[in-house]
Protein backbone atom coordinates (compact mmCIF):
# COMPACT_ATOMS: atom_id res chain seq x y z
CA UNK A 1 0.00 0.00 0.00
CA UNK A 2 1.55 3.21 -1.14
CA UNK A 3 1.34 6.27 1.00
CA UNK A 4 -0.29 9.01 -1.07
CA UNK A 5 -0.28 11.54 1.71
CA UNK A 6 2.92 13.40 0.62
CA UNK A 7 1.68 13.53 -2.98
CA UNK A 8 -1.65 14.95 -1.86
CA UNK A 9 0.16 17.50 0.29
CA UNK A 10 2.24 18.72 -2.65
CA UNK A 11 -0.79 18.96 -4.93
CA UNK A 12 -2.47 21.18 -2.36
CA UNK A 13 0.66 23.34 -2.06
CA UNK A 14 0.99 23.68 -5.84
CA UNK A 15 -2.69 24.59 -6.25
CA UNK A 16 -2.38 27.17 -3.50
CA UNK A 17 0.55 28.98 -5.08
CA UNK A 18 -0.91 28.72 -8.58
CA UNK A 19 -3.99 30.39 -7.18
CA UNK A 20 -1.94 33.23 -5.74
CA UNK A 21 -0.13 33.71 -9.04
CA UNK A 22 -3.39 33.77 -11.00
CA UNK A 23 -4.89 36.25 -8.55
CA UNK A 24 -1.85 38.49 -8.93
CA UNK A 25 -2.16 38.38 -12.72
CA UNK A 26 -5.83 39.21 -12.43
CA UNK A 27 -5.20 42.18 -10.14
CA UNK A 28 -2.40 43.41 -12.40
CA UNK A 29 -4.76 43.28 -15.34
CA UNK A 30 -7.22 45.40 -13.46
CA UNK A 31 -4.48 47.93 -12.94
CA UNK A 32 -3.31 48.06 -16.54
CA UNK A 33 -6.72 48.22 -18.10
CA UNK A 34 -8.12 51.41 -16.81
CA UNK A 35 -10.96 50.68 -19.10
CA UNK A 36 -13.92 52.21 -17.44
CA UNK A 37 -17.23 50.81 -16.85
CA UNK A 38 -19.86 52.95 -18.40
CA UNK A 39 -19.75 55.53 -15.61
CA UNK A 40 -23.16 56.83 -14.66
CA UNK A 41 -24.89 58.80 -11.95
CA UNK A 42 -24.16 58.64 -8.23
CA UNK A 43 -24.82 60.61 -5.08
CA UNK A 44 -22.28 61.45 -2.36
CA UNK A 45 -21.85 63.99 0.44
CA UNK A 46 -20.39 67.46 -0.02
CA UNK A 47 -19.81 70.18 2.56
CA UNK A 48 -23.25 71.45 1.56
CA UNK A 49 -25.14 68.19 1.69
CA UNK A 50 -25.75 65.45 -0.87
CA UNK A 51 -24.67 66.04 -4.46
CA UNK A 52 -25.54 63.92 -7.48
CA UNK A 53 -23.81 63.99 -10.85
CA UNK A 54 -27.24 64.49 -12.38
CA UNK A 55 -27.45 67.86 -10.55
CA UNK A 56 -25.01 69.11 -13.19
CA UNK A 57 -26.89 67.95 -16.27
CA UNK A 58 -26.21 70.49 -19.02
CA UNK A 59 -22.67 71.02 -17.74
CA UNK A 60 -19.50 69.20 -18.62
CA UNK A 61 -18.14 67.31 -15.63
CA UNK A 62 -14.47 66.65 -14.93
CA UNK A 63 -14.37 63.90 -12.33
CA UNK A 64 -11.31 62.75 -10.39
CA UNK A 65 -10.84 60.12 -7.68
CA UNK A 66 -8.08 60.53 -5.11
CA UNK A 67 -7.44 61.40 -1.47
CA UNK A 68 -6.35 64.52 0.34
CA UNK A 69 -3.25 63.06 2.03
CA UNK A 70 -1.90 62.29 -1.45
CA UNK A 71 1.13 64.57 -1.68
CA UNK A 72 1.29 65.37 -5.32
CA UNK A 73 -0.47 63.10 -7.80
CA UNK A 74 -3.98 64.19 -6.79
CA UNK A 75 -3.29 67.91 -6.36
CA UNK A 76 -1.23 67.89 -9.57
CA UNK A 77 -4.16 66.41 -11.50
CA UNK A 78 -6.56 68.96 -10.01
CA UNK A 79 -4.09 71.72 -10.72
CA UNK A 80 -3.67 70.66 -14.37
CA UNK A 81 -7.42 70.56 -14.69
CA UNK A 82 -7.86 73.99 -13.12
CA UNK A 83 -5.14 75.46 -15.37
CA UNK A 84 -6.96 73.98 -18.38
CA UNK A 85 -10.24 75.57 -17.27
CA UNK A 86 -8.54 78.91 -16.72
CA UNK A 87 -7.42 78.85 -20.38
CA UNK A 88 -11.07 78.91 -21.47
CA UNK A 89 -13.24 82.00 -21.78
CA UNK A 90 -15.26 82.77 -18.63
CA UNK A 91 -18.44 81.69 -20.48
CA UNK A 92 -16.88 78.35 -21.37
CA UNK A 93 -15.35 77.87 -17.93
CA UNK A 94 -18.74 78.35 -16.33
CA UNK A 95 -19.97 75.27 -18.16
CA UNK A 96 -17.34 73.01 -16.59
CA UNK A 97 -17.90 71.40 -13.20
CA UNK A 98 -14.87 69.91 -11.46
CA UNK A 99 -15.59 67.14 -8.95
CA UNK A 100 -13.10 65.46 -6.62
CA UNK A 101 -14.20 62.20 -5.00
CA UNK A 102 -12.16 61.11 -1.98
CA UNK A 103 -11.62 57.36 -1.68
CA UNK A 104 -10.37 57.96 1.89
CA UNK A 105 -13.56 58.74 3.86
CA UNK A 106 -11.85 57.81 7.15
CA UNK A 107 -9.58 60.85 6.88
CA UNK A 108 -11.31 63.22 4.48
CA UNK A 109 -14.46 64.88 5.75
CA UNK A 110 -16.81 66.63 3.30
CA UNK A 111 -15.97 69.89 5.07
CA UNK A 112 -12.20 69.51 4.62
CA UNK A 113 -12.73 68.37 1.02
CA UNK A 114 -14.69 71.53 0.33
CA UNK A 115 -11.83 73.70 1.60
CA UNK A 116 -9.32 71.67 -0.38
CA UNK A 117 -10.99 71.82 -3.80
CA UNK A 118 -11.89 75.49 -3.55
CA UNK A 119 -8.16 76.16 -3.43
CA UNK A 120 -8.08 75.19 -7.10
CA UNK A 121 -11.27 76.66 -8.52
CA UNK A 122 -13.99 78.09 -6.36
CA UNK A 123 -16.78 76.12 -8.06
CA UNK A 124 -15.08 72.73 -7.59
CA UNK A 125 -16.94 70.26 -5.42
CA UNK A 126 -15.37 67.70 -3.06
CA UNK A 127 -17.36 64.54 -2.31
CA UNK A 128 -17.09 61.40 -0.27
CA UNK A 129 -19.29 58.75 1.29
CA UNK A 130 -19.26 55.35 2.93
CA UNK A 131 -16.85 52.70 1.74
CA UNK A 132 -19.78 50.77 0.25
CA UNK A 133 -20.92 53.79 -1.75
CA UNK A 134 -17.41 54.53 -2.96
CA UNK A 135 -16.79 50.90 -3.92
CA UNK A 136 -19.93 50.92 -6.05
CA UNK A 137 -18.88 54.11 -7.83
CA UNK A 138 -15.34 52.78 -8.24
CA UNK A 139 -16.83 49.82 -10.11
CA UNK A 140 -18.95 52.15 -12.24
CA UNK A 141 -15.84 54.06 -13.28
CA UNK A 142 -13.32 51.21 -13.05
CA UNK A 143 -11.35 53.09 -10.45
CA UNK A 144 -8.72 50.90 -8.85
CA UNK A 145 -7.90 51.77 -5.28
CA UNK A 146 -6.42 49.93 -2.36
CA UNK A 147 -5.60 50.93 1.19
CA UNK A 148 -2.03 49.92 1.96
CA UNK A 149 -0.49 50.15 5.45
CA UNK A 150 2.84 51.99 5.33
CA UNK A 151 5.26 50.44 7.78
CA UNK A 152 7.34 52.82 9.89
CA UNK A 153 5.65 55.84 8.37
CA UNK A 154 3.78 58.59 10.15
CA UNK A 155 1.27 58.34 7.30
CA UNK A 156 -0.10 55.09 8.73
CA UNK A 157 -1.52 54.06 5.39
CA UNK A 158 -1.52 55.23 1.82
CA UNK A 159 -4.08 54.57 -0.86
CA UNK A 160 -2.73 53.20 -4.10
CA UNK A 161 -5.06 54.42 -6.79
CA UNK A 162 -5.55 54.86 -10.50
CA UNK A 163 -5.23 58.49 -11.52
CA UNK A 164 -7.52 59.51 -14.37
CA UNK A 165 -9.66 62.56 -15.05
CA UNK A 166 -13.04 61.45 -16.38
CA UNK A 167 -14.73 63.89 -18.73
CA UNK A 168 -18.50 63.57 -18.87
CA UNK A 169 -20.66 65.33 -21.46
CA UNK A 170 -23.73 67.49 -20.91
CA UNK A 171 -25.98 64.42 -20.99
CA UNK A 172 -24.05 62.69 -18.23
CA UNK A 173 -22.31 60.29 -20.63
CA UNK A 174 -18.69 59.43 -19.95
CA UNK A 175 -16.64 60.53 -22.97
CA UNK A 176 -12.92 60.87 -22.20
CA UNK A 177 -10.38 59.37 -19.86
CA UNK A 178 -7.55 61.79 -19.38
CA UNK A 179 -4.43 60.03 -18.08
CA UNK A 180 -2.80 61.66 -15.08
CA UNK A 181 0.08 64.08 -15.74
CA UNK A 182 -1.55 65.13 -19.00
CA UNK A 183 -0.59 68.76 -19.56
CA UNK A 184 -3.22 71.50 -19.16
CA UNK A 185 -3.22 72.33 -22.90
CA UNK A 186 -4.28 68.80 -23.82
CA UNK A 187 -6.98 68.80 -21.15
CA UNK A 188 -8.26 72.13 -22.50
CA UNK A 189 -8.45 70.63 -26.01
CA UNK A 190 -10.57 67.75 -24.70
CA UNK A 191 -12.83 70.18 -22.83
CA UNK A 192 -13.24 72.25 -26.00
CA UNK A 193 -14.29 69.15 -27.96
CA UNK A 194 -17.02 68.54 -25.41
CA UNK A 195 -18.04 72.21 -25.33
CA UNK A 196 -18.51 72.21 -29.11
CA UNK A 197 -20.95 69.33 -29.04
Amino acid at each position, binding site marked *: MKNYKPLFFWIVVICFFTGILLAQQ*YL*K*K*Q*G*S*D*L*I*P*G*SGGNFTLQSDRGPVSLSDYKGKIIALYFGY*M*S*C*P*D*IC*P*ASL*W*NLSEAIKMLTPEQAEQIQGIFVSVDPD*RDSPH*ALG*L*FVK*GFIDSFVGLTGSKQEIDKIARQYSV*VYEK*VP*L*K*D*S*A*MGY*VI*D*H*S*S*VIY*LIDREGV*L*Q*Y*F*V*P*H*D*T*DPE*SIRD*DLLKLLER
Partner: protein
Amino acid sequence: MKQLLALIMILSAFSVSADVAGQVMIDQPYVRAAIKQQRNSAAYMHITNQGDNAYLLYAKSPVADSVELHTHIDDNGVMRMRKIEKIDLPTQQAVTMEPGGLHVMLLGLNRDLKTGDEISLTLGFSDGSEKNLKVPVQMRYRAKKKAKQESKTLQDKPKMITH
Protein backbone atom coordinates in the same frame (compact mmCIF):
# COMPACT_ATOMS: atom_id res chain seq x y z
CA MET B 1 52.76 57.79 21.26
CA LYS B 2 52.93 56.85 17.59
CA GLN B 3 49.36 55.67 17.74
CA LEU B 4 48.19 58.90 19.24
CA LEU B 5 49.96 60.81 16.49
CA ALA B 6 48.28 58.64 13.85
CA LEU B 7 44.90 59.27 15.43
CA ILE B 8 45.48 63.01 15.42
CA MET B 9 46.48 62.85 11.77
CA ILE B 10 43.38 60.89 10.85
CA LEU B 11 41.12 63.25 12.73
CA SER B 12 42.70 66.31 11.17
CA ALA B 13 42.35 64.74 7.72
CA PHE B 14 38.64 64.42 8.41
CA SER B 15 38.29 67.96 9.59
CA VAL B 16 39.73 69.43 6.40
CA SER B 17 37.75 67.22 4.00
CA ALA B 18 34.47 68.85 3.09
CA ASP B 19 31.32 67.19 4.36
CA VAL B 20 28.46 66.06 2.14
CA ALA B 21 26.37 69.11 3.00
CA GLY B 22 29.16 71.25 1.60
CA GLN B 23 29.44 69.18 -1.55
CA VAL B 24 25.81 69.13 -2.67
CA MET B 25 24.14 71.86 -4.65
CA ILE B 26 20.41 72.36 -4.33
CA ASP B 27 18.57 73.82 -7.32
CA GLN B 28 15.02 75.09 -7.63
CA PRO B 29 13.66 73.80 -4.33
CA TYR B 30 9.96 74.34 -3.73
CA VAL B 31 7.24 73.01 -1.53
CA ARG B 32 3.67 72.54 -2.71
CA ALA B 33 1.10 74.94 -1.35
CA ALA B 34 -1.37 73.14 0.92
CA ILE B 35 -3.97 73.82 3.52
CA LYS B 36 -3.59 72.41 7.00
CA GLN B 37 -6.59 70.11 6.42
CA GLN B 38 -4.66 68.27 3.74
CA ARG B 39 -2.25 67.30 6.52
CA ASN B 40 0.56 66.70 4.06
CA SER B 41 2.65 68.36 1.44
CA ALA B 42 5.86 67.59 -0.37
CA ALA B 43 9.09 69.36 -1.23
CA TYR B 44 10.96 68.95 -4.50
CA MET B 45 14.38 69.98 -5.77
CA HIS B 46 17.39 68.99 -7.82
CA ILE B 47 20.35 67.80 -5.78
CA THR B 48 23.76 67.70 -7.46
CA ASN B 49 26.50 65.91 -5.55
CA GLN B 50 29.96 67.22 -6.37
CA GLY B 51 31.65 65.07 -3.76
CA ASP B 52 31.92 61.32 -3.27
CA ASN B 53 28.93 58.96 -3.35
CA ALA B 54 26.58 59.80 -0.52
CA TYR B 55 22.98 59.47 0.63
CA LEU B 56 20.24 61.76 1.72
CA LEU B 57 19.12 60.07 4.93
CA TYR B 58 16.50 62.31 6.45
CA ALA B 59 14.87 65.72 6.40
CA LYS B 60 13.11 67.82 9.02
CA SER B 61 11.02 70.96 9.09
CA PRO B 62 9.26 72.98 11.79
CA VAL B 63 6.04 73.09 9.71
CA ALA B 64 5.43 69.32 9.90
CA ASP B 65 5.16 66.74 12.69
CA SER B 66 7.36 64.39 10.74
CA VAL B 67 9.26 64.44 7.50
CA GLU B 68 9.99 61.34 5.44
CA LEU B 69 11.59 60.43 2.14
CA HIS B 70 9.08 58.94 -0.28
CA THR B 71 8.82 57.83 -3.86
CA HIS B 72 6.02 56.97 -6.25
CA ILE B 73 5.82 53.87 -8.34
CA ASP B 74 3.65 54.11 -11.43
CA ASP B 75 2.31 50.57 -11.71
CA ASN B 76 0.41 50.61 -15.01
CA GLY B 77 -1.40 53.78 -14.09
CA VAL B 78 -1.93 52.89 -10.43
CA MET B 79 0.18 55.22 -8.32
CA ARG B 80 1.77 53.57 -5.33
CA MET B 81 3.52 55.86 -2.88
CA ARG B 82 6.14 54.28 -0.66
CA LYS B 83 8.47 55.40 2.08
CA ILE B 84 12.16 54.91 1.34
CA GLU B 85 15.10 54.79 3.75
CA LYS B 86 17.49 56.94 1.74
CA ILE B 87 18.03 58.66 -1.56
CA ASP B 88 21.22 57.84 -3.40
CA LEU B 89 23.36 60.82 -4.34
CA PRO B 90 25.92 59.38 -6.74
CA THR B 91 29.05 61.41 -7.24
CA GLN B 92 28.90 64.12 -9.92
CA GLN B 93 25.24 63.44 -10.65
CA ALA B 94 22.04 65.38 -10.34
CA VAL B 95 19.10 63.69 -8.64
CA THR B 96 15.67 65.10 -9.40
CA MET B 97 12.89 65.10 -6.86
CA GLU B 98 9.64 65.91 -8.63
CA PRO B 99 5.89 65.26 -8.49
CA GLY B 100 5.18 61.64 -9.31
CA GLY B 101 8.65 60.55 -8.21
CA LEU B 102 11.06 61.09 -5.34
CA HIS B 103 9.99 63.70 -2.80
CA VAL B 104 10.46 64.95 0.72
CA MET B 105 7.13 64.21 2.37
CA LEU B 106 5.91 66.66 5.00
CA LEU B 107 3.46 64.87 7.28
CA GLY B 108 1.14 66.50 9.76
CA LEU B 109 1.27 70.13 8.69
CA ASN B 110 0.83 72.48 11.61
CA ARG B 111 -0.12 75.39 9.38
CA ASP B 112 -1.31 76.31 5.90
CA LEU B 113 1.46 76.61 3.33
CA LYS B 114 0.54 79.61 1.20
CA THR B 115 2.07 80.58 -2.12
CA GLY B 116 4.78 83.14 -1.43
CA ASP B 117 5.64 81.76 2.04
CA GLU B 118 9.00 80.24 2.79
CA ILE B 119 9.60 77.24 5.00
CA SER B 120 12.75 75.96 6.67
CA LEU B 121 13.87 72.52 5.60
CA THR B 122 16.93 70.67 6.89
CA LEU B 123 18.46 67.86 4.87
CA GLY B 124 20.55 65.25 6.69
CA PHE B 125 23.23 63.30 4.84
CA SER B 126 25.03 59.98 5.25
CA ASP B 127 28.08 61.52 6.95
CA GLY B 128 25.94 63.22 9.58
CA SER B 129 26.24 66.68 8.03
CA GLU B 130 23.14 68.81 7.58
CA LYS B 131 22.12 71.52 5.17
CA ASN B 132 19.53 74.16 6.05
CA LEU B 133 17.35 75.46 3.25
CA LYS B 134 14.75 78.15 2.84
CA VAL B 135 12.19 76.67 0.48
CA PRO B 136 9.55 78.80 -1.27
CA VAL B 137 5.94 77.64 -1.26
CA GLN B 138 4.51 77.36 -4.75
CA MET B 139 1.34 76.11 -6.34
CA ARG B 140 2.83 74.54 -9.38
CA TYR B 141 3.63 71.21 -10.81
CA ARG B 142 6.38 70.74 -13.28
CA ALA B 143 4.78 68.44 -15.77
CA LYS B 144 7.02 65.51 -16.53
CA LYS B 145 8.39 65.82 -20.00
CA LYS B 146 7.00 62.90 -21.86
CA ALA B 147 5.27 62.05 -25.08
CA LYS B 148 1.87 63.64 -25.32
CA GLN B 149 -0.70 61.22 -24.10
CA GLU B 150 -3.96 61.02 -25.93
CA SER B 151 -7.14 60.88 -23.98
CA LYS B 152 -9.22 57.86 -24.66
CA THR B 153 -12.84 57.58 -25.58
CA LEU B 154 -15.21 54.66 -25.24
CA GLN B 155 -15.09 54.29 -29.02
CA ASP B 156 -11.29 54.10 -29.01
CA LYS B 157 -11.36 51.13 -26.75
CA PRO B 158 -11.40 47.78 -28.51
CA LYS B 159 -13.70 46.19 -26.00
CA MET B 160 -14.94 46.60 -22.52
CA ILE B 161 -13.34 44.38 -19.98
CA THR B 162 -15.63 42.91 -17.41
CA HIS B 163 -14.18 41.49 -14.29
